[in-house]
């Protein structure tokens, strides 16, 4: 039989944990908001590549536009790829989606550092793209990325995305 003080302590600990979780859910800090922006970006890119095209793709492109800063830069040195500006990035995204490449993009091991003025944030993460190849076999591509977000009108927008060359 569990003694009363122990039971009380366990109940108090459970209540404190629940309160802490609820607090974080109701009033997320800026780092959590930046991470949410990154997750939304991943979901939008994934939606862009879903089969069917047409209206769904247009809606996804519209969503993507709202997540990008006007001066956004995509930089992938190992692939000799650099794209400057939101319109160029959207054009690339539309072309990639039309090219038939399908996959689910997600970010793991996400680390967020918000600047002191809370107007910019640096994110490190592992980007995973999972899907099926032409032969039907499951494929996974993973690479490290550095993202920079800036705050505009209360919303975190992607300003820069750069792949990190882990193997030089």
């Amino acid at each position, binding site marked *: 039989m569990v003694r009363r003080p122990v039971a009380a302590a366990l109940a108090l600990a459970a209540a404190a944990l629940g309160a802490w979780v609820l607090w974080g859910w109701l009033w997320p800090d800026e780092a959590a908001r930046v991470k949410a922006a990154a997750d939304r970006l991943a979901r939008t890119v994934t939606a862009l590549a879903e089969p069917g095209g047409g209206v769904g793709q247009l809606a996804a492109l519209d969503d993507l536009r709202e997540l990008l800063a006007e001066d956004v830069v995509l930089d992938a040195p190992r692939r000799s790829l650099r794209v400057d500006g939101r319109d160029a990035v959207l054009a690339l995204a539309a072309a990639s989606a039309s090219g038939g490449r399908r996959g689910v993009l997600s970010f793991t*091991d996400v680390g967020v550092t918000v600047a002191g003025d809370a107007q910019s944030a640096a994110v490190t993460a*592992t980007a995973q793209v999972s899907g099926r190849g032409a032969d039907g076999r*499951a494929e996974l591509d*993973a690479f*490290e990325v550095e993202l920079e977000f800036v705050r505009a009108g209360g919303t975190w927008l992607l300003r820069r995305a750069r792949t990190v*060359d*882990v*193997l*030089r």
Partner: protein
Amino acid sequence: MLASIWLGANPRRTLARGLALVAVSLVLFGVVLKPIRASGVSMAPTHEPGDLLLCYALAYRSSGPARGDVVAIRLAGPGVVMVKRVVGLPGEAVRIASGVVEIDGVPLDEPYVRRRQPWTYDEVRVGADEYFVIGDNRSMAMPLHDFGRVDRRRILGRIVW
């Protein structure tokens, strides 16, 4: 009676043993031997997609990786890692000619490589805190295969299973 069925004649001892087992497992598989699910074909045929691997995280506490070691390399964190084989050690010159890895000009014997494409890779010098890593699958096109010099600090441990 139900408790006796599940917990035996001495429930307290059974619970204590269960907790001890959980604690040991957490330490063993959380700190010492980290499970990794292989994905991708760069280490085939040594490790095929779907294989369950174990990374010994304490392997390099007192010394660095040795040539031939299969290691886990972290990306942004430990959640997703690359698995590659060490072929070049700090200070060595590595190049690939006609699919054969050469270390300081000497061809490397690699019995784990089954088939090779005639890769060509210009010589690079491995830094003092670096290792040259590459996958075992040399039958794939070189642009599709990630390999090169990696910072020592990114190596999480040695694949032992």
